[in-house]
C-alpha cells in the first residue's frame, strides 16, 4: 500500500505548495488582482500541473536501460508516448499550415479556422485512407503468406529472437505482423465503411420515405425501429451472429452476414435521424411545388430532400462509422466478427494479448497488441475530433 501513501503525500505537498505559491505571489506583486482574486482551486490546479510537468520531465530523463542492460519498460513506454504526442502535434500543425496556403480559396478558408484537434483528425483519416487503398503496394508481404519462422520477436535483431525481414516479427503461425497490421486498415476500415454505407442507404431511404408518405407506413416502420432499438446493439448483433454462424458454410460468408446484420441494426439509428430531418423539410414550400409539378417519389427524395439534409447526415455518418467500426472490432475481438485468413485489428488484439505480460523484458513485444488496439482507437478518435468540429461549426455555437 506504499503507492497509495506516496500519492497521498504528493497530493498534500501540492496542496501546501499551491497555498504557499499564491501567498508568495500576493506578497511579491503587491496584491496584484491576478493573485488577489485567484480562488484556491485555481492555485491548486496550477500547482498540480506544474508538479505533473516536473515529474514528466524527470521521468523522461531516467535511463531507459539499467546498468545490467535490461530495459526499463516504464520509461521506454513513457518516452514513446511523449515522442508520439510531439510528432502528432507537429504533423497536425504542419498539415494545417499546408492547408492554409495550398488549395482553393474555400479550402484555405476552412483550414484558417480549424482547431488543431480537427486538423489532426483530418490528417489521420487521410493517412488511413491511403493505407487502406494502397495496402497491397505498401505492405512488404501478403496478409496470408506463412513463413517458416513462427513467433519471431519484433525488433529485427536475430540475437534477441528477431528476423530482419520481419520488423514487427511474425505471429503464432508465421505470418508477417507488419503486413497484417497494414492490411488490417484495408479489411477493418473497409468493411466498417461498407457497412456504414449500407446502413445509410437502408435507413436513409426508409426514413425519407416515411417522412414523405406518413400514414401507416411511417407508423409501421417507426414502431419496428422502436423495438429493434430497445435491444442493446452489441447484444443483438451477438445473438444474430450465433444464428448466422449456423447458416454460414464458409468463413467468408460469416463476414458477409456480419456486414448485413450490423447494417440493419445501425440503420435503425439512421432511420430515426433521417425521418426527423425529412419531416422538417417535407413541410417546405418547394416540396409542395415539386409535388404540384407532379414529380415522382424518387425525385422528391433524392433531388429535393437529400441535398437539404446533407449537413446533419454527414455528421451522423462520421459518428455512425465510429460505432460500426467499434462494434465490428469488438465482435472480432470476441472471436465472432471478421474471420481468418483476413487480417483484422480486433482479432490481432485477441491473438497477441498475452504478450502484454512480457512488458518488463521486451517493451516492443508488449506494444504489439497495444499497436493493433491503438490503430482502432486512433481512427475513432480522429473521426470524433472532426465530427465535433463540424457540429460546432454548423450549430454556430460559440459558448
Amino acid at each position, binding site marked *: 500500500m506504499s503507492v497509495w501513501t506516496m500519492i497521498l503525500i504528493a497530493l498534500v505537498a501540492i496542496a501546501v505548495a499551491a497555498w504557499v505559491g499564491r501567498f508568495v505571489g500576493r506578497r511579491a506583486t503587491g496584491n496584484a488582482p491576478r493573485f488577489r482574486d485567484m480562488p484556491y*482551486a485555481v492555485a491548486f490546479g496550477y500547482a498540480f500541473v506544474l508538479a505533473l510537468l516536473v515529474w514528466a520531465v524527470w521521468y523522461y530523463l531516467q535511463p531507459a536501460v539499467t546498468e545490467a542492460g535490461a530495459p526499463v519498460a516504464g520509461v521506454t513506454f513513457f518516452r514513446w508516448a511523449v515522442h508520439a504526442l510531439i510528432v502528432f502535434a507537429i504533423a497536425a500543425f504542419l498539415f494545417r499550415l499546408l492547408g492554409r496556403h495550398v488549395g482553393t480559396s474555400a479550402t484555405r478558408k476552412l483550414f484558417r479556422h480549424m482547431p488543431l484537434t480537427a486538423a489532426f483528425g483530418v490528417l489521420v483519416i487521410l493517412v488511413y485512407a491511403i493505407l487502406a487503398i494502397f495496402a497491397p503496394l505498401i505492405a512488404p508481404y501478403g496478409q496470408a503468406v506463412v513463413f517458416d519462422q513462427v513467433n519471431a520477436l519484433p525488433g529485427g535483431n536475430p540475437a534477441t529472437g528477431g528476423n530482419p525481414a520481419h520488423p514487427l516479427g511474425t505471429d503464432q503461425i508465421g505470418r508477417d505482423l507488419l503486413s497484417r497490421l497494414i492490411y488490417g486498415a484495408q479489411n477493418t476500415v473497409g468493411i466498417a465503411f461498407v457497412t456504414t454505407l449500407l446502413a445509410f442507404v437502408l435507413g436513409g431511404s426508409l426514413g425519407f420515405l416515411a417522412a414523405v408518405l406518413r400514414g401507416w407506413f411511417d407508423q409501421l416502420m417507426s414502431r419496428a425501429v422502436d*423495438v429493434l432499438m430497445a435491444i442493446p446493439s452489441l*447484444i443483438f448483433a451477438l445473438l444474430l451472429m450465433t444464428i448466422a454462424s*449456423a447458416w454460414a458454410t464458409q468463413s467468408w460468408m460469416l463476414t458477409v452476414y456480419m456486414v448485413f446484420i450490423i447494417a440493419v441494426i445501425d440503420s435503425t439509428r439512421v432511420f430515426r435521424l433521417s425521418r426527423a430531418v425529412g419531416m422538417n423539410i417535407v413541410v417546405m414550400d418547394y416540396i409542395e411545388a415539386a409535388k404540384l409539378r407532379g414529380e415522382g417519389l424518387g425525385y422528391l427524395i433524392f433531388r429535393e430532400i437529400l441535398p437539404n439534409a446533407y449537413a446533419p447526415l454527414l455528421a451522423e455518418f462520421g459518428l455512425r462509422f465510429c460505432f460500426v467500426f467499434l462494434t465490428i472490432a*469488438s465482435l472480432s475481438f470476441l472471436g465472432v466478427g471478421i474471420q481468418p485468413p483476413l487480417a483484422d485489428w480486433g482479432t490481432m488484439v485477441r491473438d497477441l494479448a498475452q504478450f502484454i505480460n512480457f512488458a518488463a523484458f521486451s517493451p516492443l513485444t508488449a506494444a504489439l497488441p*497495444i499497436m493493433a488496439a491503438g490503430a482502432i*482507437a486512433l481512427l475513432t478518435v480522429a473521426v470524433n475530433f472532426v465530427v465535433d468540429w463540424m457540429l460546432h461549426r454548423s450549430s454556430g455555437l460559440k*459558448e
Partner: protein
Amino acid sequence: MIIAQRLALGVLTLIVVSMVIFGAVSMLPGDFAEAILGQGATPQAVAAIRRDLGLDEPAILRYFSWLGDTLRGDLGVSYAQMNFQSNMGGGDNLRTVASQIAPRFANTMFLAGVTACIAVPFAVGLGILAALFRNSAFDKAANVSTLSSISSPEFFLAYILILFLAVLNPVLPSLSNIYEGMTLSERLEKTLLPALTLTLVVTAHMMRMTRAAIINLLASPYIEMARLKGVSPMRVIVRHALPNALAPIINVVALNLAYLITGVVVVEVVFVYPGIGQLFVDSVKNRDIPVVQACCLIFAAAYILLNLTADILSILSNPRLRHPK
C-alpha cells in the same frame, strides 16, 4: 397517470422484444433436437426428443410456453449440459440455465455497482468543475481526454490499464478470478481494474452532459441575480444551477448505466471476470442456444428497465412534466 402510461409501454416493449428474440432463434436451421443429438442423430431419436420438448407444436404455442417458463424462472437446460449428460450418462443433477446464470448475474451486478459508485460522482464532479472553469485550459483538456476515452474500444483502455497498473506497476491483479467465499475487500481488489476500465468508458458522456446542462442554465435571470448578490461562482453552480440541471443529469446517468450492460461483455472477456457477459460470449461461440436466448433476454430486460427508469425519474424530477396541462 403519465407514469402508468410509460410503465405499460415498457412492459409492452419487453413482450415484443421477447418475441423478437424467440423469433430470431427459431430462424436457426434444424432445431433443438438435432442440435442436442449432434452427428449421431437417428430419425427416431430426433422425433422422440421433439415430442419430449414439444417441438412439434406450432410456433405460437411454443412461444407462450417458453414465455411462461421464463417468467417462472425456468430458462431450460443448456445444450452443453445436455450433451454431457447424454454422452456420459450422469445422474439427474442436470444444471439448468437458471442455476448457471444466477451466480454470474450477481457478479455482473457487483461489477456494474462498483463502476457506478466510482463513475457517477467522478463524472458529475468533473462536469461541475468543467462548467465552473468553462473555456479554460482545464475545460479543454477534460473535453479532449474524455472524447478520446469514449471513442476508444473498451479492450484498448483495458489493455492500457493492465499494462500500467498490473504488469509494469503490480498494484492490481490483471485477472479477476472471483469465487465464492471471498472477503469483500479481496473481491473489490479483483473487481477494481475492470471497474476502472468501464468508468473510463462511461465517464465522458455523463461529464459532457453535466457540463452542458449547467452551462445551459447560466444565462437564466435567476443565476444573474445570484451573481449580482455576490454569491461565489462555486455556490452559484452547486446551489442554484445544479438542482435545476438535475433532470437531464439523472437521465444521462441512467442511460449510461444501461450502456454499461453492453460494455460489460467485452470487459468481462478481457479480465476473465466470471460474469454473465463472458457466459454469453462463450455460448455464442458454442452455439448454446438456450443460454444465448436467456442471456440476451436478461441484457435486453436490464436495458429496457434502465431506460424506463431514466424516463420516469426525469418526469418525477420535473414538476412541469409531473403535472401536464
